[in-house]
């Protein structure tokens, strides 16, 4: 039987034969992930299950990235619970200090996730690893507790929406713009319970980091996973990050899709998602003159080295508007060091930016850049729900690093080419 990417990966992890979408299958998992918000609940459930050890101490990642460096006593207590559990179970991949980064930037960098893996994480943006050709999806803490104990979980085989991108990318347009545009088109529930599978010449030419940016936001269309084929670029990325034995992977000829979309990127400008849902997407020029109080560049969506370089290219020799707080958070210690070594921090500091530690921080209104009532932020993060970054009366606009950096300079939302 011909399988699409989602079916092909699930099939590799189960003894049951996958014959149709909607089928329930039990699959062995390659890695189980939780963070400082979701792990404490998972640990509670794990103990309630009577489990005494994790299924494989090398296939568990506990990354304390959301409220770290711990923002208050309660969050410190939560991290303490996770740390003690990690030590008790002998978990190999536990991170909270100088080795810690935003989980979905960190795990690919450590080579812990890759092609054909099944990754389940108690974090909705676990789908990021689809950029590497992994069937990676978010679940709640108790599902994760079950996977920690058993090393397996159940999946409903999702119907797949295939999306092909072709055409010529305009200047200052990239992965973030493509995924925002697609979410605008599908709607926040347009891919509910479904897999997204990406392809086409624009995707073939896209970097692995760009693919991860796109896969990261599959959930914002309701998607279970956002899958990319595994090609020479993926294999080179994985080898460079210490993995061995990975192989190319693509959908079978004749695979079944619920829907097939073909989108041309020619003539498409930078995209911005307006409050208060990610599908409220407009072209950047429609928002000209929209004043901003803060710009955030970072997160699991856009906190990687290419994003830092994209922001630096705009900020070089320029200054953030004096009414804008520009906050830049490289997503892992490695990215931090690389940005520093490449001289990007001088550019950021000269531009008047605050360069902070790797943390999810402001994205979810945790800390390190909370908004007051009436304030507006342009952000490279992934959600703009009401109150997401602070006050219920604040607003978040989602965009690429180039648009966020340009808007910080202009003091208002602007096309980077018109700065």
């Amino acid at each position, binding site marked *: 039987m011909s399988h699409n990417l989602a079916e092909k990966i699930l099939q590799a992890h189960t003894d049951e034969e996958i014959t149709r979408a909607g089928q329930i299958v039990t699959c062995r998992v390659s890695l189980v992930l939780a963070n400082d918000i979701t792990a404490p609940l998972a640990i509670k459930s794990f103990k309630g299950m009577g489990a005494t050890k994790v299924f494989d101490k090398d296939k568990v990642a506990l990354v304390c990235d959301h409220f770290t460096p711990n923002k208050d006593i309660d969050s410190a207590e939560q991290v303490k619970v996770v740390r003690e559990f990690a030590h008790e179970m002998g978990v190999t991949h536990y991170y909270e200090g100088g080795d810690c980064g935003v989980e979905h930037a960190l795990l690919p960098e450590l080579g812990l996730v890759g092609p054909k893996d099944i990754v389940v994480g108690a974090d909705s943006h676990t789908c990021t690893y689809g950029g590497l050709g992994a069937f990676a999806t978010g679940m709640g803490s108790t599902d994760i507790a079950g996977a920690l104990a058993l090393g397996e979980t159940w999946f409903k085989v999702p119907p797949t929406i295939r999306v092909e991108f072709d055409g010529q990318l305009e200047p200052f347009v990239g992965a973030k713009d493509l995924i925002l545009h697609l979410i605008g088109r599908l709607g926040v529930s347009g891919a509910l319970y479904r897999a997204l599978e990406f392809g086409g010449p624009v995707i073939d030419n896209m970097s692995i980091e760009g693919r991860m940016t796109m896969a990261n936001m599959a959930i914002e269309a309701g998607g279970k996973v956002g899958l990319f084929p595994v090609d020479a670029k993926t294999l080179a990325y994985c080898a460079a990050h210490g993995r061995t034995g990975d192989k190319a992977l693509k959908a079978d000829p004749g695979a079944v899709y619920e829907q097939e979309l073909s989108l041309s990127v020619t003539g498409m400008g930078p995209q911005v998602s307006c409050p208060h849902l990610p599908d409220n997407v407009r072209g950047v020029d429609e928002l000209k003159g929209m004043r901003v109080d803060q710009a955030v560049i970072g997160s699991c969506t856009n906190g990687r080295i290419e994003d830092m370089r994209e922001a630096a290219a705009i900020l070089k020799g320029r200054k953030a508007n004096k009414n804008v707080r520009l906050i830049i958070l490289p997503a892992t210690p490695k990215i931090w060091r690389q940005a520093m070594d490449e001289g990007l921090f001088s550019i950021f500091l000269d531009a008047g930016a605050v360069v902070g530690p790797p943390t999810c921080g402001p994205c979810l*209104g945790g800390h390190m850049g909370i908004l007051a009532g009436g304030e507006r932020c342009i952000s490279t993060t992934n959600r703009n729900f009401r109150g997401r970054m602070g006050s219920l009366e604040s607003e978040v606009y989602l965009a690429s690093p180039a648009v966020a950096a340009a808007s910080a300079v202009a003091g208002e939302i602007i096309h980077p080419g018109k700065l």
Partner: protein
Amino acid sequence: MLVTGKVHKVGAHIDTDAIIPARFLVTTDAEVLGSNCMEGLEPGWVKRVQKNDIIVADENFGCGSSREHAPIAILGAGMPVVVAKSFARIFYRNAYNMGLVLLEVGADADKLRDGDTLEVDLDAGQIKNLTTGAVVVCAPVPQSMQDLLDAGGLVPYVKKRLAEKQ
């Protein structure tokens, strides 16, 4: 099992940041989370809720993050059932794992108005609107979810599986 309670109507795409904002995620305590339920939708929202009251939502209820604190907050506020046109995927799994019952009714959700009193028959999969007399039949709970409910939720299910393995 019958649940009788008053409807609290909410809109479409109610996200988990609305159900329980991130600043409250520094605890796993159901009562504390419950006392802040829907704080991201409207400050003080939960004050209107009495035990067994029922949230009735439009489409895609529970979208956004994977935080299990969301179904826990709803249960912690005393609400055992949520009725919606449709539910987001992660929230759906979480709710069943936590023992929060979700009833997907499609467009029939429009027959249930804010303040109406409902009698929900979980065994029959039927909602009676005691205020208007309307009856809404729910989509049947999928067999795999029913198996999970029959086992008493995911925690006892895994407990049993672990015992079998030893």
